[in-house]
């Protein structure tokens, strides 16, 4: 009598039993390989926070755009909130998110804005820089990362529109470009107020189409005394005049101003031939002369450096006194919304000495005396640094 053929189940079990050693080895190798994959960092947002301050005009310019680790973003913004600044200016470079053909990777801006919201901070977004795909090859032309070809203005405007649409209701203030009155910031080309006005027009239109409530901050001009013919820079006063002459009045909702004091105290009188904090009054006068007095001004960069080896710096005590006086000075200007101190912290102090000595917190998160002084001022505490 022939032997009965084994059932299908028995055959499967038998083959599985034979393959068991191989399967076990594969499982071990797979487990070993999986163990090499780093676990995602765990960032716990915690309960939502609010800013406690007695001066809502206090603002800082953060530099989180180059920060890789998320905990540093979180720690930085927590320190901003604890200091008593309800507003930050943060830089969102176009090439960092641009993936070409209208595609964007928003993961890093998402992270920054999520943490800022969680700390109860308002974000003023500074938008700029140019993707490499739009810049001329380095062997053809010496430029900087800020070289935006005139025929690519509409592409930048599309990016601005996409940014505004994505963060509608979360980011309501955007700054268009940075210091266009410096050749370095204009792609190593002579500053061109008329071209910048055209850029404002295109971006203003795109931004308001994406979110009618958004405010476009124009200008962000560098304080400089360079004449119109310099080629390297153009006086911020002249630049603003030419912007108005080119019709810029209709294409921005507020003026962004950079107001550095260098060695002068904040009450040094405004003078077209001097760079000091109150130079903002000269820019304001130009706005008024062009019937634009209803628009507010936001000082998106300001501050004093206490770098011991820079001729344009002040002593640490003067830096504290001048900064706090500037906040008070600004409170007397009803047209001024905020004074944003440049800068809160940079990722690596050694990478830029100039910025490191403007910072309120060192890159290892050590709070400098000026941080404690601003915090005491903002929170109404007794100042740890009074004569």
């Amino acid at each position: 009598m022939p032997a009965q053929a084994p059932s299908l189940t028995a055959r499967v079990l038998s083959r599985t039993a034979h393959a068991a050693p191989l399967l076990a080895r594969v499982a071990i190798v797979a487990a070993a390989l999986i163990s090499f994959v780093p676990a995602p960092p765990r960032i716990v947002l915690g309960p939502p926070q609010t800013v406690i301050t007695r001066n809502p005009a206090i603002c800082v310019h953060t530099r989180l755009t180059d920060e890789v680790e998320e905990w540093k973003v979180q720690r930085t913004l927590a320190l901003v909130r604890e200091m008593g600044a309800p507003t930050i200016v943060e830089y969102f470079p176009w090439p960092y998110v641009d993936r070409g053909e209208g595609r964007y990777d928003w993961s890093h801006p998402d992270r920054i804005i999520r943490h800022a919201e969680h700390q109860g901070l308002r974000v003023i977004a500074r938008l700029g820089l140019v993707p490499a795909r739009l810049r001329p090859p380095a062997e053809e032309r010496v430029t900087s990362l800020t070289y935006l070809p005139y025929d690519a203005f509409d592409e930048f405007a599309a990016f601005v529109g996409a940014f505004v649409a994505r963060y509608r209701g979360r980011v309501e203030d955007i700054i268009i470009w940075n210091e266009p009155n410096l050749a370095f910031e204009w792609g190593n080309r002579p500053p061109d107020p008329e071209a910048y006005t055209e850029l404002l027009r295109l971006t203003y239109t795109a931004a308001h189409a994406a979110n009618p409530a958004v405010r476009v901050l124009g200008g962000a001009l560098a304080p400089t005394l360079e004449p119109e013919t310099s080629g390297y820079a153009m006086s911020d006063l002249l630049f603003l005049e030419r912007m108005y002459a080119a019709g810029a009045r209709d294409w921005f909702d507020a003026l962004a101003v950079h107001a550095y004091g260098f060695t002068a105290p904040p009450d040094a009188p405004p003078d077209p031939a001097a760079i000091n904090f109150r130079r903002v009054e000269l820019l304001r006068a130009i706005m008024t002369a062009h019937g634009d007095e209803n628009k507010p001004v936001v000082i998106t960069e300001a501050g004093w450096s206490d770098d011991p080896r820079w001729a344009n710096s002040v002593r640490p005590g003067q830096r504290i006194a001048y900064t706090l006086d500037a906040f008070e000075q600004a409170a007397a200007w009803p047209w001024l919304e905020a004074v944003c101190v440049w800068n809160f912290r940079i990722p690596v102090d050694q990478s830029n000495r100039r910025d490191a000595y403007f910072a309120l917190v060192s890159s290892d998160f050590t709070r400098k005396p000026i941080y404690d002084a601003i915090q005491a001022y903002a929170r109404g505490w007794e100042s740890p640094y009074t004569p």
Partner: protein
Amino acid sequence: MSRMPAWPARARDLARRARQHPRRSALVTALLALAVVLWALTRPGMPLGPVDLTWHRMQVNRDFYVGIDPSYPPFAEWTPERIEGIEPDIARELGRRMGVETSILIMGYDGLYDALYTGQVDLILAGLRADPLYADWVHYTQPYFDAGQVLVFRRDGSYSGIEALDGKTLAVEIASLGDQTAQQWQRRLRSLEIQRHMLPQDALDAVARGDADAALVDTITARLSLTSYPELRQAEQTTASDEYVIAIRAADFRLINAVERALDRMRADGTLDAILNRWLGSGS
């Protein structure tokens, strides 16, 4: 019965084998000797060792390029005539002692390390502090100046240590490193009154007037100011050091040796002090 240590027995065994195989022994010995000679010859400075191309170029061209940021008087300043100050003087003296002509290249502070890395300059002399970030390719020399915080007091006083400040009044510049150091001392002493002033000169004024027992200010301010205060003197050592060093590419071992040697001699024969005194005053 005590056991003999193993190694003499092994050594005797090895010697016995060597006697049994003299040719093989000679070959092994020769190979070992060759390895030692090769190792020695490939050390830095030996004929087969790495070449210090910077030093070689300096010897051929008799030139020497120093990167300086001239924004820090009296350490370095760009006057209409020339670059002058402590650091240019040290650079020129180093060049003189090495028998080469010093060329000072002016650059912004943030470009200094890039210039050193790319070989535009042979060393940087710009009030640098030793920075671990660059330790893998930069050699930092011995300090040529300590800009740290120093106690200043009246000539009839003596403050050898912080204990001597117990119960005293210490004048400092607001928010300076001296202020932060004084706050640390305040926690360690039974009583220390900190008197804060906007400028370091104001702190020295307070000591001169007798409103404070001592001042803790940076060495540069102390040395520049004390000529105006004959009644004051500064402590011999800083209490919180802040040493300025020279940065050289670590691969340039011959240049490093030459610069370190030159600094040693400048310190020993008083040249370094003379340069510092010329620009900062003697501090007394």
